[in-house]
């Protein structure tokens, strides 16, 4: 009798386990996205947090195709080999369905061989160097690039400044001086400016960025002051922003247009009192909330979730990458790669960056998303959009205010 009872209990347990396994198999498998960012940098930290925000929103609304969404994030550490290892791990151990993220062309160049090996749908938010585009090569229909390439950016600056000068005849843009950090980023900016604005008077001089141990800009600022340009641009890093403005004030250098072109700004720059009237390039600013509902929704979600402001355009780019993929998968109705690629190639996504994103061929790749940077200006401690005019949130403050403001 006792043995029969034991047998019955065992059968119930086995049946229960089988049911439990069956229930697990029946549960919807998550759709997995693998993200690689430099997490020690504000661009990567906020980009990855924004991607997670998008994933949380999707899951709160039932996921994608009724399946939950998971985001696995790995730090690239700004290193090509670490970035490549992250792709290998995401592909072979985490078994992700999509690759997203990215910042830095150097890291991306290291990742490209691994990306080409796995050929999973990739929605990349960083890397502007045309060398990365050449490394990807033509006919890679799985590769989608959101960030504009360097030549797209250069062309958009020419277009933007020309449009601004036409609309506001007081604004002169004939004489340029570029102060550029002596590394790859600054030197490439100077070369590109010389080529793009070849019909204008251009001069320039390099400086050692504070990020590379420098920080004394007096000589280059004195030369620029002597040159008396219509437009003064400095191309360096966020570490240069405050000291370059301080030193410009010290020598009373106030050109009519004072433009800064770092990839990111110090979080406190707007509050510094040195920012007023400084023009900059970027893709997004909180002021876009007044002209874009998607931007306002993203901004409010980010601030309420993380109790901080997104301070770089890589933040909304991370959010956008996830949302574009989600929209394409829903439209495809399955996880079939070809069907999703077809949907992505026809997508029109209203993004938090203001513009509606669609993909079209660029010089080499088949699927290039954004092609424009915006021209913005610090006004009253906030970045206002000056151009493209359809997203403009303010009129230009011109000329740059004198230092006895």
């Amino acid at each position, binding site marked *: 009798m006792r043995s029969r009872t034991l047998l019955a209990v065992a059968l119930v347990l086995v049946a229960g386990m089988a049911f439990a396994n069956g229930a697990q198999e029946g549960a919807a498998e998550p759709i997995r996205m693998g993200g690689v960012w430099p997490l020690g940098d504000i661009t990567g930290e906020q980009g990855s947090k924004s991607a997670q925000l998008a994933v949380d929103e999707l899951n709160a609304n039932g996921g994608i195709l009724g399946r939950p969404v998971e985001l696995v994030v*790995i730090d690239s550490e700004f290193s090509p080999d670490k970035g490549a290892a992250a792709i290998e791990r995401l592909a072979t151990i985490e078994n992700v369905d999509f690759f997203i993220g990215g910042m830095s062309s150097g890291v991306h160049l290291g990742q490209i061989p691994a990306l080409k090996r796995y050929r999973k749908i990739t929605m990349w938010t960083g890397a502007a160097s045309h060398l990365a585009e050449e490394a990807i090569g033509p006919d890679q229909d799985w590769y989608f690039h959101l960030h504009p390439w360097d030549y797209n950016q250069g062309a958009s600056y020419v277009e933007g400044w020309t449009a601004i000068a036409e609309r506001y005849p007081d604004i002169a843009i004939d004489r340029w001086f570029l102060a550029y950090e002596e590394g*790859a980023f600054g030197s490439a900016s100077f070369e590109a400016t010389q080529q793009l604005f070849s019909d204008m008077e251009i001069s320039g001089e390099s400086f050692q960025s504070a990020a590379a141990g420098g920080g004394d800009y007096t000589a280059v600022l004195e030369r620029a002051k002597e040159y008396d340009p219509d437009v003064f641009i400095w191309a360096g890093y966020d570490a240069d922003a405050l000291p370059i403005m301080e030193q410009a004030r010290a020598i009373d250098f106030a050109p009519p247009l004072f433009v800064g072109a770092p990839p990111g700004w110090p979080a406190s720059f707007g509050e510094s009192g040195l920012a007023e009237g400084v023009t900059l390039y970027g893709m997004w600013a909180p002021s876009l909330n007044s002209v874009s509902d998607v931007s306002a929704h993203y901004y409010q979600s980010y601030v309420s979730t993380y109790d901080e402001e997104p301070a770089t355009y890589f933040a909304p780019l991370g959010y956008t990458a996830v949302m574009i993929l989600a929209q394409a998968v829903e439209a495809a109705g399955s996880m079939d790669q070809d069907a999703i690629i077809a949907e992505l190639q026809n997508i029109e996504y209203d993004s938090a960056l203001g513009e509606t994103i669609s993909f079209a061929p660029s010089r080499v790749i088949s699927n290039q998303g954004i092609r424009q940077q915006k021209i913005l200006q610090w006004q009253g401690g906030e970045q206002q959009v000056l151009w493209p005019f359809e997203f403009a949130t303010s009129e230009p403050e011109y000329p740059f205010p004198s230092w006895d403001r």
Partner: protein
Amino acid sequence: MSSIEQRPRRRAPWVFAALAALLAFLPLVAGPYPQTIARSVLTYMMLAISWDMLIRSGQLSFGIAGFFGLGGYAAAIGATYLGVPPVLTLVFAAVVVGVVALLIGAVVLRLRGMYFAIVTLALAEIFRIVMHNWSSLTGGPNGMLLPRSAFDGNSVATYLMMLVLAAVVIGVSEWFRHSRIHFALTAIRDNETVAASAGVNIYAYLLTAFAITSGIQGAVGASYAQLFGFVTPESSFNVNYTLIPLAMTLLGGMYGTWGPVVGAVLLGVVGEYLKLFIPYGHLLVYGVIIVLVILFMPRGIVGLVRGHLERSRRTTTASEKGGAA
């Protein structure tokens, strides 16, 4: 009795070699991700060994990143303009960088201590600036893509390539330790005047060590370029290629082959795993670990283990003598 005592000592190197072989070949069956991590570990390991080979003479070099980057560019230029096959670019880069180091070393090896260290640091920067500005040859700030990477990027084949290169570097380092060069370099480090009076040709030995170690760094730079298929001034001459091998050597222990090997394996693997568990902030923990280990283990892990083994051996010998008495 004595033969029984000696047996474990004879067996130990074989056990160590078998373990090392197992560790070396483990990534081959573990998949592409462990292979990528292992390739990275081997890269830094070779740089750490080469740095240690020169420091055995007392000459402190901060020029690893410079010769590493120069090797990468030599490989890229050799493959692009001279049609050197991918794997042979490693040899090509080693020779080019070795010759460059020989020419530079002929001048700078008159310097000692911090003067030499600062010159090597400056050399790395000069190489970077030359590559950065010689746009017609090197692609300038944007760098250049290699026509094709070694074994078309096959992860097993490229791992084996790195393994063979690492074995060669370990072999050269061990040859250094068991040849006249070792005694000469040690004598130079201990007391240069005494070494010179004993007939050691200091200049020739230092020049040989500098050229060989720089050649190794050039070959490793070439292998890195072949693994990822590109070179840029910023990534190829990154200061991490100087700092990380130094940290690995200090962690593992200086003045020998196995200290850098142990340091590279430990820091490489720990660094990778830390970031999986602490995605935001792992570099801070990594840095704290390095500082603590260097503070509390100034002779490195290998030095600590050796010291422990020597102490226990002395204790055993003393107790045997006591027992016999």
